[in-house]
Each structure stands twice: as C-alpha cells, then as structure tokens.
C-alpha cells in the first residue's frame, strides 16, 4: 500500500498562527445573573471591538427570567455601557446584538431542554455555526448536574462542544469528584474548561514570563537564595449580598482553594518543557501534590467585626444581610505552607487572604536572603532591607525590585529603593479583562489557563484536611475589625519566626 504524502502548505510560512476561533454558538446559562452583566457580555463586546470573535457566531442567553430577545439585548446593552472597558460603538454593538438570542429556560424542567436544541439547530442553519458549541455555566453549583446531564444526552456528533464551568467546582473533594464523574460520562476532559479567572489576568501570566523568560531570576528562585515567600489576596469588599453562597463557602473555599493555591503553584512550579496546557498543568499539579497539610498552629482563621473602610463605618460579618448572627464562617485565612521538594524544602510560603482588609491588593513577594557579608559598618546599612521582588497582581499591575543603593552625599549610607516596572505603564495599553482572554481561549480550545480535574482534586484535598482540623476548636469570632489586616494571630503566625508581613 502506498502512503499518500500530505504536502505542507508553503503559503502559511511566515504568517504565524491566527488566534481566530472557528464558527460557534456560545450558550450562557445564567444569562440574567450578575456575572453575565458584569463580566461575560462586556468581555464579548471587547472581543467584538477587536474583531476576535468568529465571523459566524451567535450567542444564546438562557435563564429563568421571562424575557424576549429584545429585552435581553437591552439588558446586555446596559451592561456593556456600564461595565465595558471600551467606548460604546453602535456598529460593534449592532453586530453583537444581531447575533444574540434569548431563551427562557427553567433548568429543573428537563422537557424544555428540547427548545434549546431546536434553537441551536435553527441558528446553525441561519449563521453557519456548524454545530460547534460553547456552553458557559454561569449558574449555581446545584443547577449543574441537570444541565450537564441534559446537554450530554442531547449532544450530537456534529461539531465540537466545550463547557466553561465557573468556580466553585464542588464543595469538597467528594463533591468535586462526583461532578467530575458526572461530566466525564458525557464529555471528555479536553472539553471541560474550569475557570479560575485569576489565571486570565495578564499579571498572573506575566509571572510565567518573569520566571521563565528572564535568565536572571530562575537561578536564584530556590531555597538557597529565597528566605520566604508571602502571598496576599486582600479585599476591602465585604460579601456584597452573597450570604447564601459565602456562609457555606467562607474564605477557604472562596479564595484559598482556587485563586490562592493557583498563585502558590505558579510561583513554586518547575519550568514546563513547553507552554502547552498539559505541560503547564502537569507542573502545577506537582506543586500541589508536594504541599503537606499545614498543622493547626500554621493556619489562622478570622472573621471581621465592625470597623471602618475608606473612612466609612462597615458592619461586622454577622450583621451582614442574611448572615447567621452566630455564624462561624471564616472571612480571613493566614497560613504557613511548604512545598516539600528539592527546590523549596524548608522555605515557608506565608499566605493571607480575606475580606474587609485594610487595602485591596494581590501581591506575591519573594523575600531573598540577606547579603552574606556586607562590608559596611552596621550603622550605614540599618535602613537596608533584604532584596525583595514584588509581583503586583492587582492593582498597579507590575513588578518592583527592592535593592540597596547609596544615599547621595558624603560618607556611605545605604538604604532600600524600589525599582518599579508598572505593567500598564510600560505598554500604555489597557489590560484586557481576564474573562476576555479565557472566553477566547475556550473558543479556541486552549486549556492552558484552565484548571484540570486532578488539579482541582489536589486543591480540595488540601482544603478538606485544613477544614477537618477546624472541627476541634471554636475561635472567638469576630476577631478582627473591618479595615485592618486581620486578627492578631495572623501577625503572630509570621512574627514568631522573626519575620513580618510586608506593608506594601
């Protein structure tokens, strides 16, 4: 038998890959919700402004609300005007609106799933979307199983299918596995895109560029040169009316399980062999597997009481609407973590996260060891701090390096100065919203910035172990005032080892 040799296309030389998705329909379940208004539709509009959406494209908003197509379009136009990062351009909006339909759908009414299939087929005919589907689950976790089952049972062999799943992916390890199993009955792992929107942030991706595109950092990115790492995910906001969710989740499930552990993994991971989804995620999973469960003395939890934010009074967590007045839900976590591998053995990673803290910021701080033998008198260097590399994830996205420099003048006095690289400043361009990048990547089938099932399971496994230990004690909540940096025990956690939290 002779093999037919496929000749490569010589006209593609030098053109480079074009990040243009194939024709498809994006179905948003939970289309009347806050996420669709604030993030999903404004992101789709920004993608449309940059002509990054496929030419043959359609959106179906699906939710319980009884809206018509036009009512839904009106709602989304308001959302784009209010939350979009681009100026409103009627010609772009008209294109997007024309591609948008709405389906009033009760997720618990399985019989109405047929209406969706009918509408999808109709759109394929009209717009040439070739049976390609992206299903975006912007719905509460309890709505997921029905949707997955119904969509799975009705999937056809025509075109490709991708599911975008919002966090939380499960409530604990058991429920996450259950959900993975259910999805796995109908969809392959490479069809599932679990969103952790932190991974869509430019500065989080820049962490990979900083580490693996610069020869100067990687050789010192290890236990020999790094004294410790601090990761802070601080919010000034409270729970913003989300008591139903937050009372069950707490800070540990809302932030620690996903965003924070992702930041730890990206900071500590080994260089991947390439930037493909599997290589990057393999390295992140290795970090999570190497993290021992922190002991009870290495985790501090807190809950905010009344205080002041931006000069205004803020109520305590237990006084928030719909919150149990005796709630024991955590709104703050501080922990000392380790990654037990060759690179990081015995190097503490201090993390803290919480609501109603003193300032909104997400930073990763790499604190290097002091110079071994500064040849200066002690008095000349008393203001000198060890070198510090600060990655500002938000706000003021960028990187600062603290170095010692001579103070101008007679004699030798050395103090710490910061060299700043401000991300938005260097490139003078508005950073795209994380959702823009992630929605586009899902349409393109690129899973690099999405969480894999084994990654989620490792995260839950760590969280379950931490939470299990909490059953044995009952802290005196509230234990920090809104507008501060958390409970005193959080400071003690790091201070007892002769270190301090950074005041950035």
């Amino acid at each position, binding site marked *: 038998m002779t093999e037919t040799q496929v*000749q490569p*296309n*010589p*006209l*593609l*030389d*030098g*053109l480079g890959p*074009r990040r243009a998705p194939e024709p498809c329909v994006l179905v948003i379940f939970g289309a009347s919700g806050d996420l669709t208004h604030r993030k999903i539709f404004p992101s789709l509009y920004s993608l449309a402004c940059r*002509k990054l959406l496929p*030419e043959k494209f359609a959106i179906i908003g699906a939710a319980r609300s009884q809206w018509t197509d036009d009512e839904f379009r009106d709602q989304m136009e308001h959302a784009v005007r209010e939350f979009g990062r681009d100026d409103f351009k009627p010609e772009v909006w008209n294109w997007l609106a024309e591609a948008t339909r709405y389906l009033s759908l009760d997720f618990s009414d399985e019989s109405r799933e047929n209406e969706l299939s009918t509408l999808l087929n109709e759109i394929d005919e009209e717009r040439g979307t070739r049976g390609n589907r992206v299903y975006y689950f912007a719905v509460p976790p309890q709505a997921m199983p029905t949707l997955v089952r119904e969509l799975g049972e009705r999937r056809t062999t025509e075109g490709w299918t991708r599911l975008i799943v919002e966090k939380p992916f499960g409530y604990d390890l058991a429920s996450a596995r259950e959900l993975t199993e259910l999805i796995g009955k109908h969809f392959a792992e490479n069809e599932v895109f679990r969103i952790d929107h932190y991974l869509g942030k430019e500065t989080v991706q820049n962490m990979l560029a900083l580490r693996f595109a610069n020869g100067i950092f990687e050789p010192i990115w290890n236990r020999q040169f790094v004294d410790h790492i601090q990761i802070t995910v601080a919010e000034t906001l409270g729970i913003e009316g989300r008591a139903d969710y937050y009372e069950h989740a707490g800070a540990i499930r809302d932030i620690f399980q996903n965003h924070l552990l992702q930041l730890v993994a990206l900071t500590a991971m080994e260089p991947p062999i390439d930037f493909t989804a599997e290589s990057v995620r393999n390295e992140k999973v290795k970090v999570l597997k190497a993290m021992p469960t922190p002991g009870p003395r290495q985790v501090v939890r807190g809950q905010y009481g009344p205080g002041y934010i931006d000069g205004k009074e803020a109520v305590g967590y237990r006084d928030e609407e719909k919150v149990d007045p005796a709630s024991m839900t955590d709104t703050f976590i501080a922990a000392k973590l380790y990654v037990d591998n060759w690179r990081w053995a015995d190097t503490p990673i201090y993390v803290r996260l919480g609501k109603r803290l003193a300032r909104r910021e997400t930073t990763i701080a790499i604190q290097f060891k002091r110079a071994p033998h500064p040849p200066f008198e002690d008095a000349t260097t008393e203001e000198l701090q060890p070198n510090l590399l600060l990655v500002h994830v938000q*706000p*003021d996205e960028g990187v600062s390096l603290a170095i010692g420099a001579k103070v101008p003048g007679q004699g030798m006095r050395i103090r710490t100065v910061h060299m*700043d*690289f*401000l991300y*938005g*400043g*260097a*490139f*003078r*361009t508005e950073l795209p919203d994380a959702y823009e990048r992630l929605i586009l990547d899902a349409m393109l089938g690129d899973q690099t910035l999405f969480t894999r099932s084994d990654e989620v399971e490792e995260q839950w496994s760590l969280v379950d172990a931490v939470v299990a230990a909490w059953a044995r004690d009952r802290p005196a909540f509230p234990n920090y005032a809104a507008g501060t940096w958390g409970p005193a025990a959080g400071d003690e956690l790091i201070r007892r080892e002769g270190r301090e939290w950074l005041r950035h």
Partner: protein
Amino acid sequence: MAAPLSATHAHVEEWSGEDVAVDDVVRALCRLREESAHETEGPDLRTSVMTHMAWVPSEWEEAAVETLAGLGERHPSRGILLFPEPDAEDGIDATVRMLAFPLREQRRHIAAEVVSLRLRGLSTRAAASIVNPLLVPGLPVFLRWRGRPPFGQPEADDLIQVCDRFIGDSGEWPDVPDAYAELPFESTAVSDIAWRRTEPWRRELAGLWPEIAEIGKLGVRGPLAEATLLAGWLRSRLDRDIELEHYEADSLDGVEIDGSECPTPVERLSGSDLLSAELDEFGRDRVYEAAAERAAV
C-alpha cells in the same frame, strides 16, 4: 514643529532651541525628567521598549504625526523625529517633549520622550552622528522612513547602519517593483508596510491550498506595490512563474486566481495598526525578502 503625539497625556514638559548642539538635547532630556520629580513622589517612570526614529521629509509631516499619535499607547519609546531640510542653512533646531501619561490609582506618571529635530543643510547628511548619542542604550532601534529612501546614499545608509529594523512603505515609492532590488537586506532587518497590508489577503490565499498550487495568472485590484508583492510572494512560495494582471486602485480590494475571485478578508488595519505590527517584529522576514526579490520577475 510636530504637534504633540497624543491627546491623552496629563501634561507636557517642553524645551526647545534653535541652532543647538546634540549635548543640549541630552541635557534637556535629563532636566525635564528631573523636573517631573518635584510635583509627585518621584520622577516620572520611563518604561521604554525601543528607540523609535522616523525620517520625515516635509511632505510627509502631517501623515507621520497622525500615525505616531496612534502608537504612543502601544509602544512606549523614545521617539526621535527627524525633519530634513537639506536646502536650508546649516544647523539643528530641536524640541524635546516629555509627555506624562496618567496611571490608574497612581500619583506618578509614565513619561514618554519625543525629540523633534529639524536638520538643516549639512546636518541632513550626518543624521547618524546626531542620533547616536540620543539612542536609549540596550534597546532596539527602529527606523521608519517616510517616502522613497535614497538607498546607497550616505543619509540613508548611515541611519540604516544605526538601526536594528528598517521600516518603509513601498506604497510610497514611485518606482516599484524595481526599487525592491535596492532593499538593504544584508545590512538590517527590513519591514514594508505595504507587505503588511497584504497579510489578510495572503491568509485568504493560503486557505485556497492545495488548489492554488497550479495558479497561472494572478489578478489584483489595488496599488502596484501590493499587487507586485502578492505576485512575488506566490511565485517564491509556489516556485512557479505567475503572470500578474494589475488594475490600479487606491486600496487592495480584489484578488483573482486564474479568473476566480478570492474571498475578501474582513480585517482592515489602520496606519497605526500596520506600523504597530511592524514594531512587534524583530528578526529578518525571509518570506518578504523572497517575495520582494521575485516581485519584478
């Protein structure tokens, strides 16, 4: 002198002088940056990714400033605009502008430097010696040349030696395709904005593979530069003789393969987009070099 490059900057510090020396310009750059420190908590941040030179004969001044205005947001750089006046009395007039762009949630600003030099008389022939002290050390130098560069003449060749990438627009040259034979491929990496304009069409044509492999005649409705480059590209990539049938038009708006219309791409790029794309390129573009070489055949 040229107008400020962007309307979005918070404020402009400016220095100008007539009959100046290059040292005066260097000192002015330092002084303006130091002065920016008085108002805020430190000097304005300077985060350049390149030195961006532009050689702008008077007839291109307006168009050049308009294009550069669309770039300030995307490519932070030290801009050096050279306005040659070979017939004027010898000397250099200079304006140095420090444009301060506001930063979200920051009191400090990002500074962009724009040096405009009017090169009079003899100084037009020694431009390289004037710009050398003004280049930002360690960063790539891009040279945008408006109009037809006099390749082989000192004023062009010396500046080309200084730069890492030469960016022209053969659509501005009256003698294409012959001019392609003079391109300085051995001295520096070369970009051609006319070539960039053909990119959406090249993508469409690439989509016609493998049927397009047997093409005999290419019809192009558009400027001559783009038409000859497309023909050169197909000849070089497919390694065959292809006849070009050219219909003059202001923009590239139709391509035929052996009489059949090629699908029209939707992508349309502005002048700033086109130059911006070239400023993101660093290495030699071998595909362009081969296309330019066979454009005239």
